[in-house]
C-alpha cells in the first residue's frame, strides 16, 4: 500500500474477536482458566505472559487445534468454535505457530500452501502457486527467496519468513503471531513490523506474542496480560503502560527489568584462547580470548556464523585451521573440552541439549554422571542431591528434580542446561542465545545466574541476537559479520547504535539457490 | 498339487482283505508331528497320515503342528509326549536338531517313527522311513545322462534348480545328481536354488535360462516349484532342452503323460511314506510284524527307492501323484 507507515492510529476498528471465560484443561493442567480477550480490526493486540501462562494454548484454541472446554468465543459477531485448523483458516484466522511448523523437505511454495494447495483434480498447479508465493515473499521483503527452494536449505530466519508467508497465503482477517521475533535479528524484526503495519492498515487484526517488552512498545496498540491461564489485565494501552506494571501483572511481583550491575572485573589471565580459527564457508580467522570471571559477548546477525564459531570452539565441529586452548590445553574434541572444563548451552535447547522425557536431575547430570558413579555403577541418590542443590541455586521451578524436563517452561529448561555445566565444575561456559523464548522473569534470573557464575571465576562466552542483552551482560563485546570478527570493544565503551551499524552492512539470505 | 485339498491322498485301503494285519486289533494312539505345511509335499504328508489313520478303526490320530522351526517343533513334541500316545510318527524339521526330542520320547517308552529326516542317534527312533535323497539325484542324473548320450550330445549344458539350498536334503540330492552325471563325464553348468515354491521356482528358472542361453537338460528338484519353472520356460519361449522333475506330483505326472512340455520325466520322492508310517506305527503299537517278512517285528529302517517316471510308465504312477 502506498499508505505512509507512520504512527499507528488509535484502534478505531470494530471488535472482531471476543473471548469470554475461556477454559481449556489438559489432563492435570488447567492451561486456560477463564480468559478474556477483545481484539479490534486493524489493531496489534499484544498478549503477554510468563512461560506457561497459556498464550500458545489460547491461540491454538482460536486456530481450531484445541477445543475450549468452557467459555465463549465470538468472531465477527458470531459464536465461533472451529472444529479443525482448516475451519479456522476458512473463517479467516491465520496463525504463525511458536514451534516452526514447516516441513523441511517441501519447497517454500509447498509449505506456504500446505493444506490449502492450489490444485485441479488433485494435481498441483505449481506455476500459479509459485507465482502467488513469489508475490507474498516480495511483499514480505524477501523476493530473493525462491519459491522452489527446499525449506531445509533456509536458515532459521528464512523459515520464519516462510511461516509468515503461509499465514499471508490465507485471506485472513486476523493473523496470530506466536513469538515470531524469537529467531529474528534486529533488522528482520524491523521488517516484520513494517509488514504488520501494512496489514493493520488494511484493517487486518494482529495478535502478537513476544517476551521482548520493548517490541510491545514499538508495534503494539493494546495489551492483554495472562497469568496462570487467567487474564490479569486487559486492553492496556501498549505505549503508555509502564514496564513495571506489565511485569508485575505478568509475574505477580516486581522485577527490576534491567541488567544487574557488574563489578569491575579484575585483570585476569586468559582462560580461553582462540587463535585464527577457520571453517570454510562459515567463519574465518576468528581470534579471541576469554578470561576467568569475564563475560564476553558476541553480537551479530542471524547467519553470521556465531553458532558455528561456538560449536567449533567446543570441539563439536572440526576446525579447518586454527587452534583453541583452554588453560593451555589444546581442545579439538568435545571430550577434551568437557574434560578440561568447558561447557556449552547450545542454540536449540530442545533438539540439541535436552532429553525431554528424562527427569530434570538426569538432564542436569548428563555431562557429569560418571563423576558420581562408583566403578561404572551410577549413584542416583548423589546425583539427585547435587541436582537439587543446583536447582536451588538457579531458582528452578518446580524444584522437583524427578519431573520430566518436557513439563518445564522454556526458561526453566534453559536453567537445566546451564545447571548441567555448573554440576560439571565448568570453568568456561559457552552460551548460545540463552534467553530465546524465555519470559521476563526467568530472563532476569538467568542474567543474575550468569553474573554469579562470572563472580565465581567462570568465564562466559555469550552469543545473543539481542544487542541490549549483549551490551548489558558482557564486559567485552565482539561483533561478527559474515563470518569475521570485525570489532572488539569494552561494553561500556560502545553503544547500541554503533553495534547495530557494525552488524548490519550486509543483508541476510541472499543468493539462495534457485 | 490341487486347488482342492484332501481330494487325492495316497492311502492303502487293502480291499483284498488277504492281509491278516488288516483285521482290527488293540487300540493304538498315534501322535503325529510334521512341520507347518506351506508346501505341497509336506501338506501331502500330513494329509496322507491323517487319511491313513482314518482308514483304521483301531487307530486314534493325534496331530500337533510343529510351527515354523525346530525349536517350535521341540516344544510341540514335549506337549505331545506329555499326552502319552502309544507311538509317535514324526517328520522333523531337521533330524539332527530334533535328535534329543526323539531320545526323550524313546526314553519315555514311546516308540518313535522318524519320517524322512534321520536322527543321527540310533537310540532316538524305533523305525526310520525315509526317501532316498541321494538316490533321487542319482536317478535324475542317470536319466539325463542316458538321454543325452543317446542323442550324442558331447558337451551338454545342464541346469539344476534345487530347493532351499541350506537344507541337507538338498545337498544330498545335488550330490547324487553330480555323481551320476560324472559317470557320463558331464557336469552342471548352472545351479539356481529356489525355495520349494512356485514363485521362487519361476524366478530361479528365469535367471537360469538367461544365464544359459542354450541348454540341453534341466533338473528341477521339486514338482511344486516346478509349476513356476515350467511357467518360466514357457515365458522365455524355450524348447531346446528337456526337463526332469522331482517328487512326483499329480500335475507333473499329468504333464509327462500329455507330453506337450519340456517336462519328460520326474524322479519320485513320494509322500506316500506317511501312509506307510501310520500303517507301521499301528503294527508297532499292536506289537505285530509285517506279514510278508519272516521277522515278528517291523524292521528298524526302510528306505523308499526313488523311481523314475516317464511317459512309458506314468500311467501306473498316476494315482500316487500328490
Amino acid at each position, binding site marked *: *500500500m502506498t499508505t505512509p507507515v507512520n504512527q499507528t492510529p488509535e484502534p478505531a476498528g470494530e471488535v472482531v474477536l471476543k473471548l469470554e471465560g475461556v477454559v481449556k484443561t489438559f489432563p492435570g493442567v488447567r492451561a486456560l482458566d477463564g480468559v478474556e480477550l477483545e481484539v479490534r480490526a486493524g489493531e496489534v493486540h499484544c498478549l503477554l505472559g510468563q512461560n506457561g501462562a497459556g498464550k500458545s494454548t489460547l491461540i491454538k484454541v482460536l*486456530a481450531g487445534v484445541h477445543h475450549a472446554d468452557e467459555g465463549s468465543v465470538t468472531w465477527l459477531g458470531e459464536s465461533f468454535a472451529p472444529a*479443525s*485448523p482448516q475451519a479456522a483458516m476458512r473463517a479467516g484466522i491465520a*496463525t504463525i505457530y511458536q514451534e*516452526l*511448523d*514447516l*516441513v523441511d*523437505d*517441501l519447497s517454500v511454495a*509447498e509449505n506456504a500452501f*500446505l*493444506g*490449502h494447495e492450489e*490444485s485441479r483434480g*488433485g*494435481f498441483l498447479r505449481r506455476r500459479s502457486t509459485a507465482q502467488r508465493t513469489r508475490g507474498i515473499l*516480495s*511483499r514480505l521483503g524477501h523476493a530473493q527467496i525462491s519459491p522452489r527452494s527446499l525449506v531445509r536449505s533456509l*536458515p532459521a530466519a528464512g523459515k520464519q519468513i516462510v511461516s509468515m508467508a503461509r499465514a499471508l497465503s490465507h485471506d485472513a482477517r486476523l493473523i496470530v503471531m506466536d513469538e515470531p521475533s524469537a529467531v529474528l535479528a534486529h533488522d528482520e524484526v*524491523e521488517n516484520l513490523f513494517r509488514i504488520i503495519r*501494512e496489514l493493520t492498515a*488494511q484493517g487486518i487484526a494482529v495478535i502478537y506474542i513476544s517476551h521482548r517488552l520493548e517490541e510491545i512498545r514499538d508495534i503494539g496498540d493494546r495489551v492483554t496480560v495472562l497469568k496462570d491461564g487467567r487474564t490479569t489485565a486487559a486492553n492496556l494501552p501498549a505505549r503508555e503502560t509502564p514496564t513495571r506494571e506489565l511485569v508485575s501483572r505478568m509475574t505477580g511481583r516486581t522485577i527490576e527489568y534491567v541488567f544487574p550491575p557488574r563489578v569491575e572485573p579484575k585483570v585476569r589471565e586468559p582462560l580461553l584462547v582462540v587463535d585464527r580459527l577457520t571453517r570454510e564457508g*562459515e567463519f574465518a580467522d576468528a581470534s579471541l580470548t576469554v578470561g576467568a570471571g569475564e563475560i564476553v559477548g558476541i553480537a551479530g546477525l542471524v*547467519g553470521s556464523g556465531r553458532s558455528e564459531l561456538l560449536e567449533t570452539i567446543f570441539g563439536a565441529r572440526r576446525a579447518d585451521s586454527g587452534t583453541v586452548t583452554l588453560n593451555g590445553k589444546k581442545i579439538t574434541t568435545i571430550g577434551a573440552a568437557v574434560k578440561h572444563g568447558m561447557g556449552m548451552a547450545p542454540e536449540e535447547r530442545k533438539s540439541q541439549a535436552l532429553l525431554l522425557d528424562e527427569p530434570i536431575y538426569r538432564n542436569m547430570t548428563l555431562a557429569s554422571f560418571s563423576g558420581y558413579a562408583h566403578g561404572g555403577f551410577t549413584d542416583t541418590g548423589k546425583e539427585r542431591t547435587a541436582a537439587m542443590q543446583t536447582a536451588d541455586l538457579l531458582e528452578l521451578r518446580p524444584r522437583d528434580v524427578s519431573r520430566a524436563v518436557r513439563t518445564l517452561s522454556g526458561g526453566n529448561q534453559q536453567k537445566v542446561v546451564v545447571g548441567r555445566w555448573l554440576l560439571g565444575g565448568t570453568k568456561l561456559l559457552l552460551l548460545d542465545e540463552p534467553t530465546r523464548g524465555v519470559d521476563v522473569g526467568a530472563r532476569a534470573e538467568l542474567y543474575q545466574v550468569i553474573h554469579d557464575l562470572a563472580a565465581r571465576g567462570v568465564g562466559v562466552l555469550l552469543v545473543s541476537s539481542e544487542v541490549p542483552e549483549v551490551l548489558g551482560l558482557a564486559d567485552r563485546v565482539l561483533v561478527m559479520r*559474515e*563470518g569475521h570478527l570485525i570489532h572488539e570493544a569494552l561494553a561500556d565503551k560502545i553503544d547500541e547504535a554503533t553495534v547495530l551499524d557494525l552488524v*548490519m552492512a*550486509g543483508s541476510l*539470505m*541472499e*543468493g539462495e539457490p534457485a | *498339487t*490341487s*486347488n482342492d*485339498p484332501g481330494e487325492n491322498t495316497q492311502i492303502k485301503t487293502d480291499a483284498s482283505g488277504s492281509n491278516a494285519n488288516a483285521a482290527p486289533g488293540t487300540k493304538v494312539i498315534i501322535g503325529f508331528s510334521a512341520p507347518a*505345511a*506351506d*508346501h*505341497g509335499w509336506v*501338506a501331502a504328508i500330513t494329509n496322507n497320515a491323517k487319511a491313513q489313520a482314518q482308514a483304521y478303526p483301531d487307530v486314534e490320530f493325534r496331530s500337533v503342528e510343529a510351527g515354523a522351526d525346530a525349536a517350535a517343533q521341540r516344544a510341540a513334541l514335549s506337549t505331545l509326549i506329555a499326552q502319552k500316545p502309544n507311538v509317535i510318527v514324526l517328520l522333523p524339521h531337521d533330524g539332527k536338531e530334533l535328535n534329543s526330542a526323539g531320545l526323550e520320547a524313546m526314553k519315555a517308552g514311546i516308540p518313535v517313527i522318524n519320517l524322512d529326516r534321520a536322527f543321527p542317534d540310533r537310540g532316538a527312533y524305533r523305525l526310520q522311513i525315509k526317501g532316498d535323497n541321494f538316490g533321487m539325484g542319482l536317478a535324475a542324473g542317470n536319466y539325463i545322462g542316458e538321454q543325452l548320450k543317446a542323442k550324442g550330445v558331447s558337451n551338454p549344458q545342464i541346469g539344476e534348480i534345487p530347493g532351499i539350498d541350506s537344507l541337507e536334503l538338498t545337498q544330498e540330492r545335488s550330490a547324487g545328481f553330480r555323481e551320476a552325471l560324472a559317470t557320463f563325464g558331464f557336469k552342471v553348468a*548352472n*545351479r539356481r536354488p529356489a*525355495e520349494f*515354491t*512356485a*514363485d521362487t*521356482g*519361476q524366478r530361479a528358472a*528365469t*535367471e*537360469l535360462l538367461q*544365464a544359459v542361453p542354450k541348454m540341453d537338460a534341466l533338473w528341477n528338484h521339486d514338482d*511344486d516349484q516346478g*509349476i*513356476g519353472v*515350467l*511357467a518360466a520356460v514357457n*515365458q522365455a519361449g524355450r524348447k531346446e532342452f528337456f526337463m526332469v522333475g522331482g517328487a512326483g506330483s499329480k500335475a507333473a505326472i499329468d504333464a509327462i503323460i500329455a507330453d506337450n512340455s519340456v517336462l519328460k520325466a520326474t524322479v519320485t520322492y513320494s509322500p506316500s511314506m506317511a501312509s506307510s508310517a501310520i500303517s507301521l506305527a499301528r503294527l508297532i503299537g499292536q506289537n505285530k510284524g509285517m506279514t510278508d517278512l519272516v521277522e515278528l517285528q517291523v524292521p528298524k529302517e526302510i528306505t523308499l527307492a526313488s523311481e523314475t517316471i516317464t511317459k512309458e510308465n506314468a500311467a501306473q504312477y498316476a494315482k500316487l501323484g500328490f
Partner: protein
Amino acid sequence: MTDQSTKPSLPAQSPPVAPAVSKDKSRANWLKGDGAESLRRNLGLVGVLVILVIIGIATRPELYGDATWVKNNVFTILTQASAIGVVTVGMTFVIIGGGIDLSVGAIIAIAGVWSTTLSTQSYGTFGMIFTAIVVGVVVGLVNGALISYGRLVPFIATLAMMVAARGLAAQISGKQTQVSANSTINSIASTKILGIPMLVIILAVVVAAGWVLLNRTTFGRRTVAVGGNPEAARLAGINVRWHTVLLYALSGLCCGIAAIMLTSQATSAQAAMANLYELDAIAAAIIGGTLLSGGRGTIIGALFGVLVFSTITNLFAINNLSTEVQNMVKGGIIVAAVLIQQFRYRSLTQLLGRKPTS
C-alpha cells in the same frame, strides 16, 4: 534501521506480475526440475549399476557380445524387478509418510491365493484381478486403521498383519499351490508390447504414476508433510490419520497388483509366495535414499534400489555363484552401494547446499 524505501515495495493485495519466463521453458521445467534432481541424487546408484554391468561384461564377455542376449538380459532384469518394484513404490509412500509396512509379502500371498481359488477363477480374468486388488486394498485399510485409529506402532501392526494374513492365506489355499487356469492372467507374463514385456510396462506405469502422485499432487505433498512433520501437517489442516490410512491402502493396492503379476509369472499362487518381500522392498527404498524416519524419499531412487538388487541377482546367475557366496557378496555390495550413494550425496550437498548464505 535499513532504509525501508530500498526494499521492493509491492502492492500488498494485488496479484503479482507474471514472471518473465516463457511458457515453453516452464513446461520443460515441469519435467526437468525434480526429475533431474532425482537423477542427480541417485547418481551413486547409477554408478553402482554401471559397475555391476561392467563386472558382468568382464566376467562373461561371450554373453555380453551377443546383442540379442543383452537386450533379453535387460528385460530379464527388469521383469525380475517388476513385481517387487511395484511393491516398493507403495512401500516408499508408506515410509515417506512416516510408517513401515512389514505385511506386503503376506498381502501379496493372500491376494494371490484369494484370486486363484476355484470359485474366484470361475469369475474370469476380471474377477481375479478385481479380487486381488480389493483384497490388497482392504488389508491395507485394516493396517491403516490399526495404526491411525488403534494407535499401534506401524512395525507391530503390520507384523501382526503379516502373521495373520499368511495364516489366512494358508487357510484359504488349504496349503496347496493353487494353479491358475486363466490363460489371460497366465499370458500377462509372456506378452510383449512393441517388444517390451508387459510386466515391465506395468512397472513403468506404476513408477510413473507413483512419481506423479508423489511430486505433482496434493496427496504426494501431504505425504511428505505427514511423514516429515506430522504436527505441522495437522496444524495445516491435513487429516493426518485419514491420510495414513490411505497410505497403507495404497501399499495394499500395489501388493494386489504385484499379486496378479506374480501369479501370472508362476501361473499359480500359494500361501508362501512373495516370502520376505517386505525386507527387499524396505531395503530398496532406503538404498534409494528414502529416510526410514519419514519425510523424505524418491520413487526414482526406490526404483534404482530395486534394480540394483535384481542386477546383483542377475550377475550372480550368469556367473553361477553358489548361494552362500552370493549372500556374502550381496551383503558387501549393499554396504558398498550405500557408501557410494552416500558419498555422492554428501559431496553434492557440500557443493550445492553449504554455501555461505550471506
